[in-house]
């Protein structure tokens, strides 16, 4: 995809005056994604620390448990049109909050004396919703209708709850997976929004 394809397309007649507003909205959402990516990094660090070694050790490679309703960004994601990428970003951000809630509930049992971790997980769910809504607003402003497949949050949450109930170690691993996916999708969203900005990377 070229930079021209990724950047804002000029609109006709009176919509030209909307471009500065649209650009401001995209810039604002991009800044939010950037900030939340940093928070997601902190969440991940705190999470691994509280699960104990080997979770925080370099080279730790747990099984990549499937999380129903949410997968990592595909390698082909970067090659998709920007509208399609943003749709996938929005869908992932909508699927994350119930999964983060499940992780928080399980961590409340495993680490009840870790209020900061629990607060970060709660904030992360709220922030994912907020960013997802902002991305949807950008898509709407771009005239792109969100046709993409959506995860059903209740099913995704129920699946995660089942995994959490199966044993402590798998629950720790699943929580790590969810926190990792959260960080990946935030980073992906930041990158995709950045390509919409004038002068953004190709």
């Amino acid at each position, binding site marked *: 995809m070229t930079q021209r394809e990724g950047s804002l397309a000029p609109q006709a007649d009176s919509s030209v005056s909307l471009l500065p507003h649209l650009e401001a909205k995209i810039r604002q959402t991009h800044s939010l994604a950037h900030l939340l990516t940093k928070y997601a990094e902190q969440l991940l660090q705190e999470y691994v620390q509280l699960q*104990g070694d080997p979770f925080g050790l370099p080279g730790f490679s747990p099984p990549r448990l499937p999380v129903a309703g949410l997968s990592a960004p595909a390698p082909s994601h970067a090659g998709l049109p920007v509208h399609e990428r943003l749709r996938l970003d929005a869908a992932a951000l909508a699927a994350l909050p119930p999964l983060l809630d499940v992780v928080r509930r399980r961590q409340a049992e495993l680490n009840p004396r870790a209020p900061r971790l629990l607060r970060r997980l709660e904030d992360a769910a709220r922030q994912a919703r907020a960013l997802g809504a902002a991305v949807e607003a950008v898509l709407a402003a771009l005239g792109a209708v969100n046709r993409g497949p959506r995860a059903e949050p209740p099913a995704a949450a129920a699946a995660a709850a089942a995994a959490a109930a199966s044993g*402590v170690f798998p629950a720790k691993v699943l929580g790590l997976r969810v926190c990792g996916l959260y960080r990946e999708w935030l980073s992906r969203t930041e990158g995709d929004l950045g390509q919409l900005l004038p002068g953004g990377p190709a």
Partner: protein
Amino acid sequence: MPAGRRGPAAQSARRPPPLLPLLLLCVLGAPRAGSGAHTAVISPQDPTLLIGSSLQATCSVHGDPPGATAEGLYWTLNGRRLPPELSRVLNTSTLALALANLNGSRQQSGDNLVCHARDGSILAGSCLYVGLPPEKPFNISCWSKNMKDLTCRWTPGAHGETFLHTNYSLKYKLRWYGQDNTCEEYHTVGPHSCHIPKDLALFTPYEIWVEATNRLGSARSDVLTLDILDVVTTDPPPDVHVSRVGGLEDQLSVRWVSPPALKDFLFQAKYQIRYRVEDSVDWKVVDDVSNQTSCRLAGLKPGTVYFVQVRCNPFGIYGSKKAGIWSEWSHPTAASTPRSERPGPGGGACEPRGGEPSSGPVRRELKQFLGWLKKHAYCSNLSFRLYDQWRAWMQKSHKTRNQDEGILPSGRRGTARGPAR
């Protein structure tokens, strides 16, 4: 055997999984290997054990193609590889582990026992909870702020170190009737405290106790019985003012207002004052200040800054014969005593007023005299400098006198006349 009641079984029971498609449970119940299709199950899953006990565990591999081998498998505990001599192959697909004399868990979420394939990939994990059952909490103390609430604090048994998450629950009930209630606002004044904000009865005793529970058992404190009216405290006295008493250099006057929250409850109050000099950490306490709202501090050092605090004890509420509980100290208020005008005994260096130069050699007898003065006199800061300045002054005044009398420097009289010495 551990103290306290035996709680849940040492092998912690797994919660029953929710009703979900079996396939989803099978997929998520055991982690898959990072590569290949082999999975494993560790038994026991998430056991709870006493410190010092032993653990026998197994890692059973299964997968596609069938006949997965236990050869090459190994264990890690909290990321550290366990010595091979602790493991043995039970059969072609099962590796056993024997751990003895277990230490307390490193983290509250459980120690991570992991079974690895030959290539290091994780096949399965289980979390160990190694610790102690709780001991009986003790030393419960409670107080009521202005009769509106009740806050209690306690000490966990064995100083709280059980290596397992231990839940503390403060319970209370009216002594002769009523049901058990559970306090809900924890950690209000420290990690082992709870606050009951409302709906408390007066003139009737409460029974209060603490229950401690963890995976290995539970323990209950002794019951504390109290009447709210006997454990009342209040706010520190507001508006504490400290001021000088005219020019009196060793006194300060302290005034305050009685705490307003209890003004309607017909009580007498006792007060305590404490004060210290600015650079000191040692407080002096004035104890016998009963039902007054002013006091004069005496015997203070002149020219010194003092910090002063006041606190209140509301005793005798509604005729209660028991002493209340002292409030917190008021915020420190500072004031200074006037400087002293005259040098007191042992104080006031004998300093010259002017800067007249000194001269003259050191005299042994004078040195001895000054040494004697230091030991036996109050004006101990005499120095050679003062003596030399006196000598210079004497010479000057002698010269002036001689001029007046007409006496020449050699001692011969000149023409000027002055008073004869």
